């Protein structure tokens, strides 16, 4: 373990984390930033070694360059636990890999900024575990990070405005996008909620891109099944009623399906530390923060999607607000008042994010797409029938369904199936309990053992 604690450790190298780290580092704080990726960027600003042009990317890359040299930037580091030491400092437990294998890295910090982003929220349906079925974010990551097309003939389905950049990105890169099926809305692109939210330019650009590549955009439609032997070969597209019950179906041949039904904020480092949570409009548990992005736990801030999904602009704004507040706490003499412009922007983008969540809810009809043998949990291969059995045996919530039928007990710890299992159990998703947030070899974990006697270690 390094000697003196950092003034600030930031977890997550997307727009929120980089903005927060840079703000603090520029004010002279000793800062470390950890990210699991090989390059900074997070999901939105994921980029290849030689980046393509993207809105906002230049600005992000400039911030990342400025951060380099002013802070310890530790890429390829996965944080698996943050805990409070008896003395009040925080211990950040991470893993990294080098030529000799996996190796634990432990940092001490006076303050922590959680900027861990979000991941796609998938819904189960028959065939969703066939190779060639990816999350929308997965298809996007392949393209942005590796320059790889997820497939040649691609169908995109789910809900939310994120489907649009995924579709236009794939079409631009040369894939035949056979259709974008948006389960919500009935309005079509011309009256897309993005327009009402003052993002006419962005919406128009997507609409133009889809039109240029002749990509059909259908609302109140969704892919409700994927078919194929070893890989996806076709999908069933359904016309839906407003509750997402199936009205009619047809088969569309394709080699790839990208699906996404919103996002799951990654908040487990916060819940490890006991941070309070609240429900976002879409039901997702997110970290509760005050006007300065402070969580309920002293010394712990959060910015970006973990405080509520609202996109990369909001993430950067929140990162900057958190950074300023952290500087103010660390250097009371240099304390500056809140920046009115930042606060106004944050309010705007928060309203935008919440409006999108309300415009693109997950409706209960998806449960009727499942068959008894449809896997709900991909890791432990738990079919719907076993989840139902658990409910009949006396499981009254998602946790007891997990205890009885094992969905969420596998590798991903319920990140993929957790939302669906909560819906099936009839409750809103609860804050995650993941004391070991990333797999850690027992050898690496053993190295975190204190060298004194166990009785002393407990003090």
């Amino acid at each position: 373990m390094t000697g003196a604690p950092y003034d600030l450790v930031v977890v997550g190298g997307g727009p929120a984390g980089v903005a927060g780290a840079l703000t603090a580092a520029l004010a002279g704080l000793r800062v470390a930033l950890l990210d699991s990726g090989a390059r900074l960027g997070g999901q939105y600003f994921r980029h290849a070694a030689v980046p393509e042009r993207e809105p906002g990317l230049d600005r992000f890359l400039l911030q990342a360059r400025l951060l380099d040299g002013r802070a310890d930037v530790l890429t390829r580091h996965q944080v698996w636990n943050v805990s409070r030491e008896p003395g009040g400092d925080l211990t950040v437990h991470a893993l990294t890999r080098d030529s000799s294998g996996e190796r634990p890295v432990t940092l001490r910090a006076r303050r922590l900024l959680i900027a861990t982003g979000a991941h796609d929220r998938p819904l189960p349906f028959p065939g969703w575990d066939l190779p060639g079925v990816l999350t929308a974010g997965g298809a996007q990551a392949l393209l942005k990070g590796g320059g790889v097309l997820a497939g040649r003939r691609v169908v995109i389905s789910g809900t939310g405005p994120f489907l649009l950049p995924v579709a236009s990105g794939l079409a631009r890169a040369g894939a035949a996008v056979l259709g974008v099926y948006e389960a919500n809305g009935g309005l079509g692109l011309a009256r897309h909620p993005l327009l009402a939210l003052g993002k006419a330019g962005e919406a128009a650009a997507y609409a133009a891109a889809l039109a240029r590549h002749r990509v059909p955009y259908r609302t109140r439609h969704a892919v409700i099944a994927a078919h194929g032997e070893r890989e996806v070969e076709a999908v069933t597209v359904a016309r839906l009623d407003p509750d997402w019950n199936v009205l009619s179906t047809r088969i569309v041949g394709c080699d790839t399906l990208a699906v996404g039904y919103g996002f799951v904020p990654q908040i487990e480092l916060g819940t490890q530390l006991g941070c309070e949570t609240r429900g976002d409009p879409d039901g997702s548990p997110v970290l509760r923060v005050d006007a300065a992005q402070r969580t309920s736990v002293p010394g712990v801030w959060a910015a970006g999607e973990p405080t509520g999904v609202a996109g990369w602009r909001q993430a950067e704004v929140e990162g900057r607000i958190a950074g300023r507040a952290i500087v103010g706490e660390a250097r009371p003499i240099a304390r500056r008042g809140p920046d009115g412009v930042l606060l106004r922007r944050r309010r705007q983008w928060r309203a935008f994010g919440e409006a999108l969540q309300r415009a693109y809810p997950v409706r209960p009809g998806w449960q009727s797409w499942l068959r008894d043998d449809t896997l709900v949990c991909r890791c432990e291969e738990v079919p719907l029938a076993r989840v139902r059995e658990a409910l009949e045996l006396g499981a009254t919530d998602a946790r007891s369904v997990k205890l009885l039928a094992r969905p969420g007990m596998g590798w991903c710890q319920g990140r993929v199936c957790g939302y669906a299992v909560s819906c099936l159990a009839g409750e809103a998703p609860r804050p995650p309990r993941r004391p070991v947030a990333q797999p850690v070899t027992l050898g690496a974990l053993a190295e975190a053992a204190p060298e004194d006697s166990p009785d002393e270690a407990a003090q």
Partner: protein
Amino acid sequence: MSDVIVVGAGVVGAACAYYAARAGLDVTVVDRGPVAGGTTGSGEGNVLVSDKEPGPELELAMLSNGLWRALAEHGGFEFEPKGGLVVAETDEIQRRLTELAGKQGVEHAMVSGAELRDYEPHLAEGLAGGVYYPQDAQVQPMLAAASLLRHGAESFGRGTLRLRLGVTVTGVLRSGGRVTGVRTSQGDVLGDAVVNAAGTWGGEIAALAGVELPILPRRGFILVTEPLREPLIRHKVYTAAYVTNVASDSAGLETSAVVEGTPAGTVLIGASRERVGFDRTTSVPVLARLAEQAVALFPALREVRAIRSYCGFRPYCPDHLPVIGADPRVPGLYHACGHEGAGIGLAPATGHLLAQLLAGERPDLDLRPFRPDRFSEEAA
């Protein structure tokens, strides 16, 4: 109106309800949460006879061991008669293990240092020996509790078994000194007898009835590894320190290596004990120590990844014995709680003996060592 109200739908409550219904009684089980939502849901599923000193708890464990085997024949949950291997690091510990095994009167085989790898090929080198207990077993405790509740009354019972979940007991109803039911968050539930099977929270239920039961939480963490393609560990394997830790009165942290594979392919790693109240905060030093001890026992685990961990609260009584029987201080109140870390293993015997009491029969075992008022006598 039921004959019996069981408070707690964990494995002990489920067993009490199952055997009572089987004896012809009408049973209502109430729990503030789901089935197996408390300590049962945080357990490894130990059905052990190897870790107990000779005496009443061992007798209970032996009775229970046979009952689990009978229950498992009806299916509905995993029961693995895998056997337990207690290993000794030194000759002195091996001598003490030998002595204990001699006194227990439980089926066992002495294992020399050279023979250890016939039992567990991946054990570390240099261990002095061990004792193998073929009767040690493991059940999937949540499913076991759920199947006892579900199938028990349906298939074999003459009485009825009703399950009311999400119902919090807020009071114990009495008339003329006798218990007549419980007050709950969803109205009164009436019954001739109330069984307190609230596990770690058994002291709170007792307090609602106006009696004291000194049950405290003793926290334990378990590490779970990634699922392995090939089983690495065949038996439940633990070091001799486990036996002394189980019996210890220390409030501080105590750990010992307890390692076993599961049908899902994962390896479960315990065991830690500390008295810190109901604090769920994960202690990385404790997890690290569990990992360290497991790797020392099975070096091949070094490269295996832990993918999650969880903690639970064992219901702990000062004398490490459970509380089983009628409470002479409150007629109609029965207790079946305080089993510490052995609740899964001891559940069927507890349920069976309590059902005998409820049905007016003479219990198969002497219940005096488990009597609920023993603590106040000691104090007096």
